[in-house]
């Protein structure tokens, strides 16, 4: 009797969860279906869920339309280099803060902690000014640099590297390793978990960036993919099937990252509260 009640309860919970999954995926599937429809089909009555025929024309048209390929390339360059650069900078700084004593250490760490809370909306106006003065408006470098100043990255790296035993570092030094070899051959391999988590989340974040590219680029050749989608929407007006095709092309890298590194993403959010 008891176990039957328990089984019914489990079935009920599964049903509830399946409803949630449907709610989570319905909009995505709907958009995906629309990306295969023909323009006239979009306005046919009654509205239908499935396209009459699965057409790939929209994908071809979106891909070959003005600057879309360019924008994908720009996004890849900016995301890859900003992620790598941020990891290097934060790992270096985290190591210094975790394993050395030096003058000004506490001041710098306090400054990093204090700026963790600062939203980019506060700094975006001066950053625009600085980028203009450096002549970096409308360049890849101009888009990459602001993403490198990521206080939370330094904080997490430091917290992780503090847990590496001093004895290990000391032993490596006694064996004659230079400080840089200690860093590259001992500390970096040991810090793999935090580096991969931080790297994956930073990549997603920079791929999905809208505000920085909006402010820091001017020409259509320098658009990132998010900006390209935004202009697509206004350029193509009512051609939503094309917009959807472009949208689904744009999420391919993100979906790949999700499929391969799901575990790290989920654990990263659960343990560090990154981007809660």
């Amino acid at each position: 009797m008891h176990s039957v009640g328990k089984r019914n309860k489990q079935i009920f919970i599964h049903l509830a969860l399946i409803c949630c999954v449907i709610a989570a995926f319905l909009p995505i599937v709907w958009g995906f279906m629309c990306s295969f429809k023909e323009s006239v089909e979009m306005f046919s009555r009654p509205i239908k869920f499935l396209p009459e025929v699965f057409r790939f024309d929209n994908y071809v048209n979106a891909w070959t339309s003005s600057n879309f390929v360019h924008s994908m390339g720009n996004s890849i360059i900016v995301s890859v280099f900003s992620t790598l650069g941020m990891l290097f900078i934060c790992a270096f700084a985290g190591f210094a803060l975790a394993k050395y004593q030096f003058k000004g250490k506490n001041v710098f760490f306090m400054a990093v902690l204090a700026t963790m809370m600062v939203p980019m909306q506060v700094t975006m106006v001066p950053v625009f000014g600085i980028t203009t003065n450096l002549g970096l408006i409308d360049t890849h470098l101009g888009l990459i640099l602001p993403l490198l100043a990521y206080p939370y990255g330094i904080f997490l790296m430091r917290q992780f590297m503090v847990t590496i035993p001093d004895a290990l570092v000391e032993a490596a030094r006694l064996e004659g390793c230079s400080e840089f070899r200690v860093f590259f051959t001992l500390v970096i391999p040991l810090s793999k978990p935090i580096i991969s988590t931080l790297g994956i989340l930073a990549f997603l974040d920079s791929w999905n960036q809208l505000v920085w590219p909006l402010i820091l680029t001017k020409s259509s050749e320098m658009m990132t993919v998010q900006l390209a989608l935004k202009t697509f929407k206004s350029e193509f007006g009512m051609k939503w099937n094309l917009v959807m095709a472009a949208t689904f092309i744009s999420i391919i890298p993100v979906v790949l990252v999700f499929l391969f590194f799901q575990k790290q993403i989920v654990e990263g959010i659960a343990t560090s509260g990154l981007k809660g």
Partner: protein
Amino acid sequence: MQQKKKHNIRFKQIVPYIFILPAFVVFTIYLFIPLINAFIMSFYDWNIATHEFVGLENYLDLLHDKLFKTTLINTLVYTLAVPVKVVLALGIAALLSSVERFQSFYRSTLFFPFILSGVVVGLIWQMMFSVDSGFINMILSFFGLSQKWMIESNHAMWVLWIVGTWQGLGSNLILFLAGIKNISTELYEAAEMDGANTWQRFRYITIPCLKPVTIFVVTMLIIGSFKIFDLSYIMTGGGPGDSTRTVVQFIYDTAFDRFKMGYASAAAYIFFLILIVLTVMQKRILMGEED
């Protein structure tokens, strides 16, 4: 020999500075200086042509700026969805933790929308709410109804609430789920022996044990809601009228459409101040209950 040793010691003292140098340079140029600059600019009439010191004028003008007030209210209204988001995430996390099979499948699928950008989510949902070819109207048309969702101002905020909740669920769900997994099973077993039912166990064990997680989730949700820009910018562009124009969009428009950099900086600092006050208040209220 001795000289080399001396050299070595000196080098060792420099090492940490070499490690910290890249971070120091980037942070100074892109974070510390801009933070100070924005503060200074907020006391200036700072346009393309003129930089004139005006004291507190920007701040005083903002207090009487109707559009700024409207965007503040809109942002606050958007933040009202936070309790719903928390309850949904907590409820689904509780269901998920009590399921024996397919748990990781549910978790990954429910999490998926979180990795999409604001632009992508905005576009996909615009399709859902589209007047002529949207899914929502397809369903409504079965009942002979149809709705001009994003065109009418009293519905536009609803759309943002729904979409924001949909997108943000995944990360909060994961935080709650991790929190629930950390609760010792002995507590539940003891409660079951004492005859506590499912609801009682949830109410008197799960919820109290999740307090730290809840504080974190609520704080992050409020801060996140206050920063809303991408979604409303893509879906409604602030309209219809100004009914979904948010504070961040006000800052953006003021700085980069109207080129009033000083005025925008003052608005940004007010925005920042509100965020700090909200965070502190949040922590006080939720922590205070414990005493």
